[in-house]
């Protein structure tokens, strides 16, 4: 290769590129990443991909076992539940509830939480200590209990649960962004930028935000997996998505009485939750390691 360029040094790739290279060097993280992408695609195309309508009841085919059992058929790949509904279609449509709901809640709570945390960190003093006391109070309430409180006030239902999980996730975002912004504000390049005459908003947008990306991204993935878990747990406790909706947690709740006779009704949605949470966690772990590699290099 011709190396006779005027510049002696190799080009240093951008930070994003370095993170991507570090991330993609480990096979297991890429598997998790593509599983997640696949799930997102399934979520978006769930209307097309589901072989049957998730609510349609095949009355003559109750509790049909999955196709790998002797009695199962390929037409109903995951079998049917106690009302004759195709479980594969329900698991596919469930991505919209459990996964889609989780993404929605995490994005909304992330925007709100980061905004509050950043503003509180930029305006120090009394307000910051008030914020800390409020945060400690809210963080003392377990997130599931906080969600249950919101449900107690507003009544059960899918909308309420989305709101409840969003509210439960906000405090963590506030805490993470608050600490990260405070740490960045101590650095010298922020003082330089201030001397250059940046306003507070410019300072936040151009200097602080790119430098707190790492903890925020890691917090986002952690929040995503806990949102999936919380939504499914609330659905399982019959507080979330109501009966006919194919939410994974409430699908499992409706299969409890069939635990002995038809374990697949519970097992399959559970595996769906497990795989999605596992791949989210793996992607988070991979990102964390890639960022660490970046720091040590």
């Amino acid at each position, binding site marked *: 290769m011709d190396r006779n360029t005027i510049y002696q040094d190799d080009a240093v790739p951008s930070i994003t590129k370095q993170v991507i290279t570090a991330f993609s060097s480990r096979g297991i993280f890429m598997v998790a990443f593509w599983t997640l992408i696949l799930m997102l695609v399934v979520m978006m195309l769930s209307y097309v991909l589901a072989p049957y309508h998730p609510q349609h009841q095949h009355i003559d085919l109750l509790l049909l076992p999955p196709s790998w059992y002797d009695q199962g058929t390929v037409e109903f790949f995951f079998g049917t539940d106690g009302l004759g509904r195709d479980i594969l279609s329900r698991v596919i449509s469930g991505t919209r509830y459990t996964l889609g709901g989780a993404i929605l809640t995490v994005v909304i709570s992330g925007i709100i939480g980061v905004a509050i945390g950043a503003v509180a960190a930029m305006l120090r003093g009394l307000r910051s*200590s008030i914020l*800390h*006391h*409020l945060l*400690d*109070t809210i*963080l*003392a*309430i*377990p*997130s*599931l*209990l906080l969600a*249950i*409180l919101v*449900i*107690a*006030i507003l*009544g059960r239902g899918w909308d309420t649960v989305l709101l409840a999980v969003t509210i439960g996730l906000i405090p963590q975002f506030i805490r993470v962004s608050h600490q990260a912004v405070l740490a960045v504000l101590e650095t010298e390049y922020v003082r330089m930028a201030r001397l250059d005459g940046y306003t507070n908003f410019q300072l936040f947008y151009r200097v602080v935000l790119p430098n707190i990306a790492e903890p925020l991204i890691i917090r986002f993935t952690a929040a995503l*997996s806990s949102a999936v*878990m919380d939504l*499914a*747990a609330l659905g*399982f*406790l*019959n*507080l979330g998505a109501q009966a006919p909706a194919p939410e994974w*947690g409430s699908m*499992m709740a409706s299969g*409890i009485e069939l*635990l*002995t006779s038809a*374990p697949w009704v*519970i*097992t399959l949605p*559970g595996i769906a*939750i*497990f795989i999605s*949470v*596992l791949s*989210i*966690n*793996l992607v988070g*772990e991979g990102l964390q390691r890639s960022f660490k590699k970046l720091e040590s290099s």
Partner: protein
Amino acid sequence: MWRYFIRKFNLLVITIFLLSLLSFSLLHLMPGLPLDALNPDGSLSLAEQRRLVEHYALEQGFWQQYAQYISNIFNGNWGTSRIDQIPIFDQMVSSFMSTLQLAVSAMALAMFIGVPLGIISAYYHGSWFDRTVTSMSLIGQSIPVFWWALMLILLLALGLQWFPLSGRIGLLYDIPEVSHILLIDIALADDEYQRAALWSAVRHIILPTLAISVIPMTALIQITRASLIDISEKNYIQAARAKGLSRYQVLWRHALPNYFSSFIRHVGALTNPLLTTTMVVEYIFDWPGAGRWLIHSLVAQDVPAIQACMLTISVFVICISIITDLLAAWSNPKERNQSHG
């Protein structure tokens, strides 16, 4: 230390005030008038309604009502449950104690297994054992706890029939509740079937304990491993190695004491996920604890019970977090200088 203590105590008081305010305003946040929230199906007679109005001081102003609520709490007069007409205070004590037994036994199991696994995998960092433990803990972290509990029931209770399905003791045993801790109650009970009752209680607690302990166990493995690896890169460890100590000696004399100085803080931080998990598992195993009671009273719209559960659980969490902070600061002066606790 005293300054730190006072700051933490101040935080505790303010937080408990805010929590009690939140729990009190639950009655006002419910749709409709407070009296409607206490009487959702309109089945109470006028005399009973008047007693409720008097008990909560409902015809007075907001802050008088709050004062009344606080004085009711301190007098142990938490009202009666609308559903089963039991005084809420008694029910709260007995159900919270049984939640605690479950949570403590799960935490103990998690510590006994999680901490040694974390130490070994940090010691043999990068070996196949380390890699197995790390991937197992990632898997354990991703298992939905209710699914895991149901699989345990399916395998060990229904399939192999080793353990009973639900509850905390066989229905045949009638143990009087004295201390609300089942094992002590059994020991106190003057019963010829004492030993059988004890065996039954132990068999009942094993499955829920296994189900809950996955969450704190994986967390402890990860925390232990990560902090030991972090410590092993410190200068004093390098110095100890250079002095000629073996890796094993370094681990026992330098790395582990340094890790355990922050151990109590890690355990304190796990209270929150531990209680959340316990609430869900109680519901599945029909364990008569605070979580199951909370979910049942939520479905039945029993507001005083919801208030009591919320206040007790969250005050407990904040107390544990403050106590562990104080213990950590007492044992390790470095922790006292944090600006925000």
